[in-house]
């Protein structure tokens, strides 16, 4: 559906996008992830023909965007970072304008109604756009992108400015759209990408740093497996801690054990690293049974997307500081979502 080959964009001396290649299939939802200024928006602007590339090739539905821009653009619905809204118009007037501009052949009334219902803006259709809240403007922007039912949707940070309920709505909507559209969306909100996208491309400094599903990317970055177990010892004292840690270390396949904080009174968590092949869960269970300890929690902690993101985008700085902890302190704004994500992981871990 979308093919990008060796895409380069230079602004004077500054290399905004440096030799990016990827392809997206039909019905795939691809997430662009990257820190600010990584080249996400530039790439999207090139994909949609708003700016042209310095070199490289973009095929949308097998049509080269430079050779036949009009045909290529008719396959794309684009929601830029700032929705391109004429704020003096009513929502209805604006959508009708975009309907005409895209030379849409569908039934006007039914198509616009369908889109407005989908984006939940039916009740504001008569309002002037400048009087709408940020969230509604964003939805009108999304509605505009959906006009003419384009097979490719390119959404640049679609949930910016929305409240949590709306974010969930939009994500559900995008997932729904992903069933019969090809969607590329960018975001720097990690859980969002993880919740919506089948595949992730991490862009850093204008190059693709990673490409694949979240677990594939994680797998490439590390060959260690980590888990956390919470074990209740017999005496509920610090003595337990050492005893249990020693016993765990003795298990075949466990490379590293670290007694973590006291999570419940007298009960400790143990972070364990194992090699790839060995499954140590049964061995841990056996030891505990033999010693009369209780396992209160066992959680596999694969790298989360946060870990991956931080590892990739800060790898230089981290290496210099000698900081190999993948779970470096998340940025302030990410903290809440980070915790949430952790919770989700533990559920998953439990299932395993």
């Amino acid at each position: 559906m979308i093919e990008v080959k060796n895409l380069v964009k230079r602004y004077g001396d500054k290399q905004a996008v440096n030799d990016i290649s990827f392809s997206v299939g039909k019905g795939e939802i691809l997430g662009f992830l990257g820190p600010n200024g990584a080249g996400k928006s530039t790439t999207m602007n090139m994909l949609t023909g708003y700016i042209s590339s310095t070199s490289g090739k973009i095929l949308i539905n097998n049509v080269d965007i430079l050779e036949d821009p009009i045909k290529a653009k008719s396959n794309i619905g684009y929601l830029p970072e700032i929705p391109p809204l004429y704020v003096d118009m009513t929502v209805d007037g604006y959508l009708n304008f975009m309907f005409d501009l895209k030379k849409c052949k569908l039934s006007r009334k039914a198509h616009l109604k369908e889109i407005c219902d989908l984006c939940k803006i039916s009740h504001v259709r008569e309002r002037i756009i400048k009087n709408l809240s940020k969230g509604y403007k964003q939805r009108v922007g999304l509605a505009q992108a959906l006009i003419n039912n384009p097979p490719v949707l390119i959404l640049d940070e679609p949930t910016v400015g929305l409240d949590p309920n709306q974010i969930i709505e939009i994500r559900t909507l995008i997932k729904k759209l992903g069933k019969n559209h090809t969607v590329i969306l960018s975001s720097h909100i990690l859980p969002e990408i993880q919740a919506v996208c089948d595949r992730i491309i991490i862009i850093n400094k204008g190059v693709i740093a990673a490409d694949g599903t979240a677990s594939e990317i994680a797998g490439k970055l590390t060959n260690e497996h980590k888990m956390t177990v919470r074990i209740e010892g017999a005496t509920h004292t610090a003595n337990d801690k050492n005893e249990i840690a020693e016993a765990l270390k003795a298990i075949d396949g466990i490379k590293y054990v670290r007694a973590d904080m006291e999570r419940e009174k007298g009960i400790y968590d143990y972070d364990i690293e194992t090699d790839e092949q060995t499954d140590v869960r049964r061995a841990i269970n056996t030891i505990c049974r033999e010693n009369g300890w209780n396992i209160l929690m066992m959680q596999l902690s694969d790298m989360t997307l946060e870990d991956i993101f931080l590892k990739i985008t800060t790898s230089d700085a981290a290496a210099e500081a000698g900081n190999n902890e993948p779970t470096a302190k998340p940025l302030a704004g990410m903290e809440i979502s980070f915790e949430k994500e952790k919770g989700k992981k533990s559920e998953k871990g439990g299932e395993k």
Partner: protein
Amino acid sequence: MGAIYRREMGAFFTSGIGYVFLAVFALFSGLFFSMGVIGSGVSDMSPMFSSMFIIVLFLIPILTMRLLSEEKKNRTDQGLLTAPVSLSSIVLGKYFAALTLFIIAESIVFIYSVIIALCGDVIWSTLLGNYFAMLFLGAAFIAIGLFISSLTENQMAAAVISMFVLFILYLLDSLASSVPWDFLKKALLSLSFYSRYTEFTSGLFDFSSVLFFLSTAVLFNFFTVRVLDKKRWG
């Protein structure tokens, strides 16, 4: 092109610029009509048309200032440039919207002709000659204004620069008379919008001048398309 044309026509009136343009045009043409035509007891409207040159020169930048600058400032150009339409249809849609408003404003002279018809005879050949001369002048000036609007994000800057440029074009005659070299004098005079326009108001319908105005319009619309295209490569 149709969608952009209709939106621009709507925007002229929602933004109020359309009303201001029509009102100021009507005010000054009415003033010149009552003083220069009715006041001096003639039935020829040419004096009014020749006085309107300077008013048109200041009014057209008001009409064209926001056409492209505002799109860029509000990032609505992203919607236009990623839609399946060509650059030339974007530019021409806007151009013809402005031209339509200008024609509406200018057509007020037909109301004046009714007033003249009440007390004398209307000389239709000179009236229509003047009418089309002003239309061609407007067509050229709007293209220049639209081009300048494509160069900046600031609509006030677009208006001021357009007025300045059009004023320079107006001054070409006096400039020509003060240059010592003959060939330069000739070149400047041949570019003079004012002398070509006043030829019409003195009753001379010159096709080379019509061609001059129209090719100016085509040329500057072409430049505008190139500016939009070049921005994508920046």
